[in-house]
């Protein structure tokens, strides 16, 4: 019974957690290249991890069955084996060195904004300089319990960020009160919004659609309700939307006598 459970535990890791829902085995992907690259890196690490775990669990299970007192009444009196111990220390170190080097080679593409130029139409629609290489900058401001997005023309919105597809979007992440964490799983990792600091990340939407996420750092009683989403639209739609948003805000401000 012990054996069967040990083997089952090994199989579970080898096959992944026992569920068929999306994101069950791997991080979310399919929204932005950085998220895709993290998922690829994760896949390699997961396979290595599964091999190591299966090896250890199988040896353990074998020992517990094969060397039961009933089958092996006389234990071997071995106190160690320097050569073997040096060997497995070196192998463990080698595995760690491989993982480190492999991860470091993938860092640049995950960390740094995509330099791929946007389409000429997008550059024109958004008025981007540098052929679109510099991308579009949007400020993300966290506060209890809502995300605010500030666009380059001064327009702003809450809860939902509207962003153009196919253009690198760089985020400057701040907080107005406590620590929050910006996270849209399909668009890459978390970046904390810490008061007094500016954090940076980026994404480049591959297709239109709505990408959901929520605050990932305990920020108070309504932390669970601090949701966020990014709506990907064409650059032309984005340009229209952000101009209209600006007009509405200006009009509202004037109406208030500001």
């Amino acid at each position, binding site marked *: 019974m012990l054996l069967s*459970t*040990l083997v089952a535990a090994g199989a*579970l890791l080898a096959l992944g*957690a026992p569920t068929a*829902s*999306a*994101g*069950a*085995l*791997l*991080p*979310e992907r399919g929204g932005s290249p950085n*998220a895709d*690259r*993290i998922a690829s890196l*994760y896949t390699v690490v*997961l396979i290595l*991890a599964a091999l*190591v*775990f299966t090896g*250890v669990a199988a040896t*353990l299970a074998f*020992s*517990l069955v094969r*060397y*039961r*007192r009933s089958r*092996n009444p006389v*234990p071997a*009196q*071995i106190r*160690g084996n320097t050569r073997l*111990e040096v060997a*497995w220390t070196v192998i*463990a170190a080698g595995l*760690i060195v491989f*993982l*480190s080097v492999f*991860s470091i080679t993938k*860092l640049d593409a995950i960390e740094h904004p995509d330099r791929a130029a946007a389409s000429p139409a997008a550059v024109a629609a958004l008025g981007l300089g540098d052929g679109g290489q510099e991308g579009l900058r949007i400020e993300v401001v966290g506060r209890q319990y809502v995300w605010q997005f500030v666009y380059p023309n001064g327009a702003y919105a809450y809860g939902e960020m509207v962003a153009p597809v196919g253009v690198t979007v760089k985020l400057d992440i701040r907080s107005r*009160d406590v620590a929050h*964490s910006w*996270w849209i*799983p399909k668009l890459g*990792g*978390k*970046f904390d919004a*810490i*008061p*007094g*600091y500016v954090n940076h990340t980026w994404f480049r939407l591959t297709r239109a659609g709505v990408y*959901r996420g*929520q605050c*990932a*750092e*305990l*920020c108070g*009683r309504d*932390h*669970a309700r601090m949701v966020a989403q990014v709506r990907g639209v064409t650059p032309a739609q984005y340009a229209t939307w952000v101009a209209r948003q600006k007009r509405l805000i200006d009009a509202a401000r004037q109406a208030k006598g500001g």
Partner: protein
Amino acid sequence: MGPDEPRGWRAWLATTDHKRIGVLYLATAFAFMMLGGVEALLMRSQLAVPDNTLLTSERYNQVLTMHGTTMVFLVVMPLWAGFANYFVPLQIGARDMAFPRLNALSYWLYLAGGVVFYGSVFFSPPEAGWTAYTPLSSGPYIPGNGTDAWIFLIHLTGVSSILGALNITVTIAHMRAPGMGWNRLPLFCWSMLAQAIMIILSLPVIAGAVTLLLTDRHFGTCFYDPACGGSALLWQHLFWFFGHPEVYIMILPAFGVISEVLPVFARKPIFGYKAIAASSIAIAFLSMLVWAHHMFATPLGAAALVFFMLTSMTIAIPTGVKVLNWVATLFRGSIVLRTPLYFASGFLVLFTLGGITGVMLAIFPIDRQVTDTYFVVAHFHFVLVAGSVSAVMAALYYWFPKITGRMLSERVGKLSFWLQFVGFLATFLIQHSLGLSGMPRRVYTYGADTGWGTDNLISTVGAFILAAGVVLTVGNVVWGLHRGPRAGSDPWKANTLEWFATSPPAPHNFDLVPRVRSVEPMRDIRREIRTRTATGGDR
């Protein structure tokens, strides 16, 4: 015990005997474990179905803060303090700890910390999480003074732990039996020594950090408030400079227990004694250099990100060496599958899995996808529940006969193991998936449209199975105290000197302290008895 010394419950209040203090620690910590367990079940019940209204968000945040703080400061650390108190002096052939009265003070400070903390239940419990991140904990965001109760808990249990660690260090350094050189020190003592050094180095840092938090909260200082020149991230650095060694403070004694239990039930010497002892020290050293891997999502800078990724991955080497040594100890042994070995085997499987996800988390781009989600919740429960608590269970079943003179029920023990093992896997394996599919930790509820309902329900059912397993062991202890079969001094044919004393040991532990000639003095003693008696005996 002299004729004028107190008896009954007064004797427990006034005791400076390391064994009684050990029992006080263990009993108190198990009581707090029940409270922390109820808190865990409350959270799992709230999350069992989407949009549940069992707990309000305020209540949920209080319960999650109580649960984490309780399990770390009032359960796992004092459980190890209890086992160390009882067994370090016995294992090294000493008659007590080096500073018995200081030892008693440590226990009473611990209890005071627990009482102060739980006193807040009647006023306003803290709700900033066990990590108490600033400015949530320092600013005007949480009404009431619960965070202050939390601060005083850290101060009281912190002083308790530091005094206890000094006591353990001096005891091991100066009170070993004749012949017990450092290369013959039991591996449980080696791991407690490494743990004590980590406590001495890291707990003063959190004591300072919470003092700054206290002055920020009440005396107008600005250490953590960016509005007047402080830094919200300073808290995170100080907290994790303590917080990461803290993980090893909770798991190193578990390594020690596993290193004691495996050779006894494999009837085979530990494989690679020196490598296991040395890797404890290596882990203690490295654990001081990895704290910012808890902060990979904060603005850190590329050099710091890469540095902390590499140091964190390096810890996998000494930890991996230990796991391989343990498996090699069982290999070619003559294995007697008793309850302590069940828990030790469960530890090996699940802790290895938790260690491997730790390596994944060290790679910071991956960490940014899974940190602060249920993936991390799963990771640290694999390390701290399947790791530390499994080893506590192994230690309990292994040492209960020495403490009480009676055996626990093997049948109930094995059933308890299976309930805990299966319940644990059901609760936490699936949480990796929940985290990967986007569920953050510390949310009091989630919508039905998230698709997290099924996995959460499985997790909740698992938690109740796990709890049933723990309750079964508590029942076994209550039964064993009065009804357990008599144990005799050495029921397991073990290796270390605590089994030379009677069960339970006399107040002075040993009538005479034998000269130690190897790392397995009891084995030497049994062999000597065998050669001296005509009847012979077991090996």
